[in-house]
């Protein structure tokens, strides 16, 4: 399947009943797939009048307790940011998919990873986080969509799949796991009709006293601490004896893996660290991956964003270099290999 289609199919199988979207390259096949199939699956597809409308429809649907999703590409995600902040501030679960393209501004339609900061640090105003998953294959897109819905419900917060145009557009074989959709009990908060049998459930992100708002945010951050402890995930590839560890996520990790294999064939001791969760960032895992390395390299389709999180995780105890291409240009395995050699990769 094409990556974008696999994301859509996985969402339906994970019990997504409402999809609100708006077309934008390179994620449009996702919305098109939903348009063709959502109704057959007993769900609702609606092409909203704008990205802003779509995210606010997600807010409304999620308020009633159903699994809801929206998707877009970089500029469209920026438009959704206000709604995402409201969703986080209302403690609502939902899934947001960003199939990134080049930016800033209207940018371009070729793949990019330059929304890392946006996804992990600042997708909207206020103190909050999203769960951010970074797939590197079409199969992982499927698996992570299912996980995103489950974790979003578990922690009552929005979850994002941060993919890139390359993954969205590429074809790969996938298998769909047997998904037994188990909806957690949302009866304690969902605004699904009180039928005069209980108090109103109010979905809200407005607090009239600063103390009340502070307490709500502090409680939310206590939940974030649990997530940081429990939900990090990463792949470590040939890192045990690695002198240089190359860090990459998403499609770039496929390029890096290819370069690492080439370097190993030349006897260079290099390995790869690939975070699968970008928030929470797998700090312990990157520390483990780099334990025996003398140098670290971050390769990204941006001017260098994740590289900061690696430096923080390693407390700047090791030199962390950066190599990237941006604006929709994909780094090649040959370029990455050249950089590894330039860093003095030891045989």
């Amino acid at each position, binding site marked *: 399947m094409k990556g974008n289609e696999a994301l859509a199919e996985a969402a339906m199988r994970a019990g997504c009943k409402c999809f609100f979207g708006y077309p934008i390259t390179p994620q449009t096949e996702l919305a098109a797939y939903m348009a063709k199939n959502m109704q057959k699956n007993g769900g609702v597809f609606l092409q909203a009048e704008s990205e802003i409308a779509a995210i606010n429809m997600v807010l409304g649907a999620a308020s009633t307790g159903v699994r809801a999703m929206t998707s877009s590409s970089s500029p469209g995600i920026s438009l959704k940011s206000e709604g995402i902040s409201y969703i986080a501030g209302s403690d609502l679960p939902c899934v947001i998919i960003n199939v990134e393209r080049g930016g800033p501004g209207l940018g371009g339609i070729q793949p990019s990873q330059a929304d890392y900061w946006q996804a992990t640090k600042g997708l909207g105003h206020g103190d909050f986080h999203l769960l951010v998953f970074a797939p590197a294959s079409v199969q992982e897109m499927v698996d992570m969509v299912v996980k995103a819905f489950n974790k979003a419900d578990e922690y009552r917060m929005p979850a994002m799949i941060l993919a890139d*145009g390359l993954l969205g557009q590429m074809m790969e074989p996938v298998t769909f796991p047997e998904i037994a959709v188990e909806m957690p009990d949302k009866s304690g908060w969902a605004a699904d009709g009180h039928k005069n049998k209980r108090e109103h459930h109010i979905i809200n992100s407005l607090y009239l006293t600063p103390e009340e708002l502070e307490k709500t945010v502090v409680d939310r951050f206590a939940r974030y601490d649990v997530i940081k402890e429990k939900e990090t995930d990463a792949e470590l590839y040939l890192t045990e004896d690695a002198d240089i560890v190359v860090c990459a996520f998403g499609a770039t990790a496929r390029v890096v893996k290819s370069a690492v294999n080439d370097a190993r064939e030349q006897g260079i001791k290099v390995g790869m660290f690939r975070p699968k969760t970008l928030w929470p960032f797998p700090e312990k895992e990157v520390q483990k991956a780099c334990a025996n390395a003398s140098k670290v390299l971050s390769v990204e389709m941006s001017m260098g964003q994740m590289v900061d999180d690696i430096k923080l995780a390693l407390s700047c105890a090791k030199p962390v270099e950066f190599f990237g291409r941006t604006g929709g240009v994909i780094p090649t395995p040959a370029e990455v290999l050249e950089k590894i050699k330039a860093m003095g990769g030891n045989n």
Partner: protein
Amino acid sequence: MITGHYGSGKTNISANLALEAAENGEKVTVVDLDIVNPYFRTADLKDMFSQKGIELIAPSYANTNLDIPALNFDLERIASGGDVHLIVDVGGDDDGAVALGRFSEPLNNCGDLEMLYVINRYRYMTREPHEAEELMYKIEAASHMKHTGIINNSNLGSETSAETVESSLDYAKELSERVSLPIVFTTAPARLGMDSSRFKSVNVLVKPIWEK
């Protein structure tokens, strides 16, 4: 004319057919008529075509950041250009085939025309012959043209095995009977070295950057 589902392998087939014709000494022109797909398109193979003396005609916005479904060439004039083996890589689904509709009249009159429908039984939305049939007729409705044959390109990308190919044959046969069109050939990746009297060996030319 090569049509089919998104990702069924139209571009790879078009490129393989073009190389084969060029190696047989034919004058070959490949037209990238895809107005729906932003990446993984015939225009990616520009350098290889130019080395083999194959002319490539693609929308000038292909592989740029301009997301405009426009064609800035005249397929009618190209098709009437004389002694050329013309291979047209049509965009995916009926959405992509719309672009062909505009040229249907001159193309239908151009005589020696084959319009081949590429199928992949492992594609999620065309796994059943009746689904592939439905899409085929949608493409015909959008393009105002009729298919003349089927190319069975059933594959699982780099995971394709001989068994993958063999177990697609019944599916292709059933579709062929349903729509009364011949299977022109069934493809097999060259690396499998399968019986060339039964399968057309194709090279995988369209692939991600980390496999190049």
